[in-house]
């Protein structure tokens, strides 16, 4: 899929949100869209997904089946999780039995089994976001567009996102992910588009040799053993520091009245 000289503004006399955007994503590729809040990441993703039409320029070779996970799933709808997903599967063109199978699969995989008959407005933000993820995956997408997919998800589901991305990529699909929380490390090998004031810069892919920092808390009494095990595993220990949070909270001089 290619974005050819795409410009976009929301109103005729409004400011340009995207300018001179030239970008390309090939089948089997993952691209992470980076940029500060308000830079135009969501707009770019919506243009790619086919939600927004460019004011100028065009988008070519968009795959026929697109899955879009919006930043906030619209939970204010009078359906249960199962009924909603089932209807979306059918609307996506799946045969009713195939739609039901896909719904069962994703409900189970995303840990929604206990919420199957819960109405959407009663879901927490994170659970509603899982429904948003499921609806985009019922029909295997040729392009999966994820707008801040880690936002509001629990740790287990956050870990599932890279696996889902890998599956779409392995099936020949493309994946476009926006990220402003630095979760890009979860997608090694992804190319990067950086959005700055409406312009998009196509960056180099992160390589398999890219390093990330993982902070691990261990009981003080077992720190020597933990460090030794990590070193034995080939990991590089940058530093060992005391856990500052409980100390700060326990310090009466830190937050007390002066």
């Amino acid at each position, binding site marked *: 899929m290619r974005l050819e000289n795409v410009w976009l503004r929301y109103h005729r006399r409004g400011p340009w949100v995207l300018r001179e955007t030239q970008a390309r994503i090939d089948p089997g590729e993952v691209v992470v869209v980076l940029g500060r809040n308000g830079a135009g990441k969501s707009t770019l993703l919506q243009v790619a997904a086919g939600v927004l*039409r460019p004011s100028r320029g065009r988008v070519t070779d968009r795959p026929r089946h697109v899955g879009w996970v919006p930043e906030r799933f619209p939970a204010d709808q009078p359906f249960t999780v199962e009924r909603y997903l089932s209807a979306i599967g059918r609307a996506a063109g799946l045969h009713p039995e195939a739609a039901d199978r896909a719904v069962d699969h994703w409900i189970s995989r995303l840990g929604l089994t206990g919420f199957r008959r819960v109405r959407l407005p009663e879901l927490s933000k994170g659970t509603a976001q899982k429904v948003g993820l499921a609806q985009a995956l019922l029909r295997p997408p040729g392009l999966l567009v994820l707008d801040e997919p880690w936002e509001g998800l629990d740790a287990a589901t956050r870990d599932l996102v890279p696996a889902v991305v890998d599956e779409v990529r392995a099936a020949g699909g493309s994946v476009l992910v926006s990220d402003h929380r630095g979760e890009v490390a979860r997608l090694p090998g992804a190319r990067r588009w950086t959005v700055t004031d409406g312009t998009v810069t196509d960056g180099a892919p992160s390589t398999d040799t890219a390093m990330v920092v993982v902070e691990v808390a261990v009981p003080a009494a077992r720190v020597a053993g933990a460090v030794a095990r990590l070193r034995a595993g080939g990991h590089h220990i940058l530093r060992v520091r005391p856990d500052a949070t409980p100390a700060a909270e326990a310090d009466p001089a830190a937050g007390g009245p002066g």
Partner: protein
Amino acid sequence: MTALLRLRLAGFLRTGRALAPVLAGLVALGVLYGGGRAQPGEAYGVSAVVLFPVLAWQTKVLLDVEPDVQRRLAQVLVGVPRERLAGLLAAGMAGLGTVAVALLFPWLVGGVTGPVEPGDRSVPVGLAVGVWAHLLAVPAAVPLGALASRASTGGAGYGVAVLALGGVGAVVLGLTGSVAPWLAPPVMATARAAADDLAAPTAALLTAWALAWSATAGAGYLWRRRHRP
């Protein structure tokens, strides 16, 4: 597209907001038929005029109950033309349901009578004319309601203004002697024709007028939605 149409109809029927236009329609029909008995052609012609703004309002409510982001998801799912069409068809189907209630209502409250004098229409013919008058109101009201929907106007205030202008305009511009009757859908002209002897050419002309108005207003809605997903 059928699945999306059903999803939207279900979303409309399951929210309490669907009740407001239906109750308003029933109250208006209650007032209409509370004034005395009339023959079906005449009664149904006026009923179609009364229902026109109700059907437009119902369309606006049906389209507005769907969250904006869900409407965009539907667009990604089925494509732009089908997303637009599914909304209009869902509103049309909801409108047909309301029309069925409106056609049944006068028989429940004793608001219609059979032929009184020689030469009056028989009940089946009067009923057929009434069905026709109501069916002409639906394709005219649906695009008006769509033009007033949030997806088209971008805000609640403009939507109410569009709805009010369309409803009042259909009556005012449809009065006998109007300088620009073609600007409005032919609900008033249809009511007059339904009360008189309805000739086939007149019925054909009114049908073509209603469909042309509907197509024009529908094109306006699609044009408004070009940059409003």
